[in-house]
């Protein structure tokens, strides 16, 4: 099958010399890398390497003590998660963070909240502008539901869904925010082979159809090697590898880190 090469653009997000510590524990030490527009970047590394901390720094959940993060040419030191979200960074979590009692559709609609402009008064009256806005947002959410093939669970409370589908709903909610950069924290953890295949297809489709840049953490090396354009490897809070999947696979430092060579 001949699929035209996708265009990887200029740098979207740049991480410069980030260091993060919790008291005496150094989670991240002097890390620099960049995420380019349109690419799928995987961050890998053994347990406790600082992968999730890295994502948390990018979307403003943690504030690194040193270093800067430049997103779309705008350097920043301190940013809150909601600011990151309004700048176009959306994420999913390692442990699913959905509203379990709400339906799939309502959960996805919460992803649109930042885009809703109707005030308290007009929302209370509802008829008129607020209703029109609601319909627009619902339409967008329906497109995502269609895209991720979750029509059958539209009205089902999320708590009743199997794990694999909950992961998909979380992806749907992140997509509802129309992100420029999508951060996925272990999107395939705990899934069976078939669910993983589906998730891979959705990630590739999101990247392709919506043009979303994706940065993901993943443990399944098969998945990482198959879908990512570039891989960043962390170990004990340091970056030990960065490059195309093939190069990283042959990198001695990476092999040592995974096979547990003494430091």
């Amino acid at each position, binding site marked *: 099958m001949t699929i035209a090469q996708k265009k990887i653009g200029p740098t979207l997000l740049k991480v410069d010399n980030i260091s993060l510590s919790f008291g005496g524990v150094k989670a991240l030490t002097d890390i620099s890398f960049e995420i380019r527009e349109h690419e799928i970047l995987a961050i890998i590394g053994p347990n406790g390497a600082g992968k999730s901390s890295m994502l948390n720094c990018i979307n403003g959940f943690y504030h690194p003590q040193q270093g800067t993060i430049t997103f779309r040419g705008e350097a920043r030191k301190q940013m809150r998660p909601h600011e990151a979200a309004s700048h176009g960074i959306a994420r999913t979590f390692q442990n699913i963070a959905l509203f379990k009692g709400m339906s799939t559709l309502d959960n996805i609609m919460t992803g649109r909240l930042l885009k809703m402009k109707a005030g308290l008064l007009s929302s209370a009256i509802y008829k008129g502008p607020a209703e029109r806005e609601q319909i627009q947002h619902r339409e967008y959410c*329906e497109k995502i539901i269609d*895209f991720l093939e979750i*029509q059958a669970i539209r009205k089902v409370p999320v708590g009743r869904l199997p794990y694999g589908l909950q992961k998909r709903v979380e992806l749907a909610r992140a997509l509802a925010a129309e992100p420029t950069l999508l951060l996925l924290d272990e999107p395939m953890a705990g899934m069976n082979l078939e669910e993983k295949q589906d998730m891979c297809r959705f990630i590739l489709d999101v990247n392709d159809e919506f043009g979303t840049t994706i940065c993901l953490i993943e443990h399944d090396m098969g998945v990482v090697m198959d879908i990512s354009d570039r891989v960043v490897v962390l170990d004990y809070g340091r970056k030990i590898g960065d490059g195309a999947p093939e190069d990283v696979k042959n990198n001695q430092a990476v092999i040592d880190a995974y096979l547990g060579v003494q430091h």
Partner: protein
Amino acid sequence: MSETSVMPDGRDPLGRDTIPKFIAYNAQHRRDRPAMREKDLGIWQSWTWGEAANKVRQLACGLAALGFKRGDKLAIVGDNRPELYWSVAASQALGGVPVPIYQDSVADEVQYVIDHAEVRFALAENQEQVDKLISIKDRLPKLEMIIFSDPRGMRHYDQPYLHALEKVLAEGEAYGQAHPGFYDEEMARGKGSDISLICYTSGTTGRPKGVMLSHDNVVRSATLAINFDKINETDEILAYLPIAWVGDNFISYAEAAIAGFCVNCPESADTVLQDLREVGPTYFFAPPRIFENLLTTVMIRMEDASAIKRGMFHYFIGVAKRVGCAILERKPVSLTDRLLYALGDLLVYGPLKNVLGMSRLRLAYTAGEAIGPDIFDFFRALGINLKQLYGQTECTVYLCMHTDTDVNPDTVGPPAPGVELKIDPTSGEVLYRSPGVFVGYYKNDEATAETKTPEGWVHTGDAGVFTDNGHLRIIDRAKDVGRLNDGSLLAPKYLENKLKFFPYIKEAVAFGDKRDYAAAFINIDLAAVGSWAERNGIAYTSYSDLAGRLEVYNLIKGCIEKVNRDLSSDSSMAASQIRRFLILHKELDADDGELTRTRKVRRRIIADRYGELIEALYSDRDSIAVEAKITFEDGRTGTFKANLKVANAETYAAMSKAG
């Protein structure tokens, strides 16, 4: 058909002899009535007959612009989507022949059909189907163009032979304007004797055969069926069965165009039950499997309901079983029972039918396999006019149908209007002649000659008997009916159907021909047995683990012994009580060739593949090691090893019916 009366042979008094002509008629006389609906982005979108006819015209002109000619075949592969039905009409209007293909066929099966039918044009629903076609394109020199309907994921495909449906429609619009009158002339050239459809039958043995049906076959059969059941333009159906199956083409396309009713397409294959509830069809066709599944789901849900609800449910279902069928058939019932039934309708049947999407249902058919009498009566007792129909692709769907007031779960009804039936006295096989008798098998005169006698009688391959009131009862496939060593009759299907009534048993395969006793393979139903295991605190890791549990064997043993007790009361069947059984470690699957695409058991393949297991049933071993080859959905294969238990079941002395 209020405007005209129907002729006894099903010919149209207005001379419309092809479905596109009926669609053109509807575009004039039912312009603003709904023809199709489809749920898109969570909202039902509808097309009127005027709009639908216009789409058909655009698509036909678009196909013509691409070079589609009279006699060309159009392969159609995908789920039930309006544009797929329109493409059937468009190809027929141009004098071409649609060849629908099962959407879950693997590439190899698709390749066989496209190659055999010499298809030049294919319409694929989405990327998945396009990928399948592209993967076999090299081996199909005659396949020239692939049109795809859903553009998702298709942006980077640059093959010159791929065409987006949207573009084809736009080009068709331009072509139609440049050639005014083209479509109407092409449509008018079609005649009743032309081939209208080639349906590849799933075939229980060997390669599928292409059944050629003429426009006359389809139009006349559909007209007679519409008249028989008083179907009219206010009816509604949900089109969810595979478009490659002749019955879906018949109901969702031919009957819809002739009667002018509305066809609803589900949002996706997973949402069918929800869509059923939203649409509330008045006319519903489903294989027994669907009714079985619905009943199983209801029963499982009721097991989990609160004690009060459960009590109420069981009490009123008891009432319904006692008097429901009689009330439906307008037979005398005492006033007390009528009042109780009315109360039950208010409290249980009404809400239940609403949940199942059957509130407005006035006509439901089941066919394809014999349905368990208890399942059949359950739905009839709720006040649903469920009837049986018997037929096959070669006769254009039906031969026998129950009338509304004379329904018997053990039979498939009297011969339908226009159908002549006879039973071969030596083999017991059913033969027929009807307006629906197929033209022949495509490029297979030998098979045609084997099936169709020179006098026009067609062999069904089914063994049957006529009951005293003129109904036909199908016992089994003529070739499957066997005899035990003591000479008594053995109809495997009959045993299997009895077993499959139990919610815990999903599939059963019975043996016994030329053996000393009857024995069976059992496939457990994961949902039902899983829920049972949960309630009884039995832990299990997988399907095969659950299937091998001793507790599950005892559960199934209980079911089999109930069947045996039941059989013992019927003198002709008492000898075929099941003495030994085993529970299979995997589900029988169409992908492994064990079931047909319409999910019928392929006996020979199973006998071949599980020969050792069958021998174990007829030995005194209590377990056997198996190594099975499994085909995954992506085409890879793997092997599976397990130790299967073989268990015995009690049998009972034959009793006379009076005792």
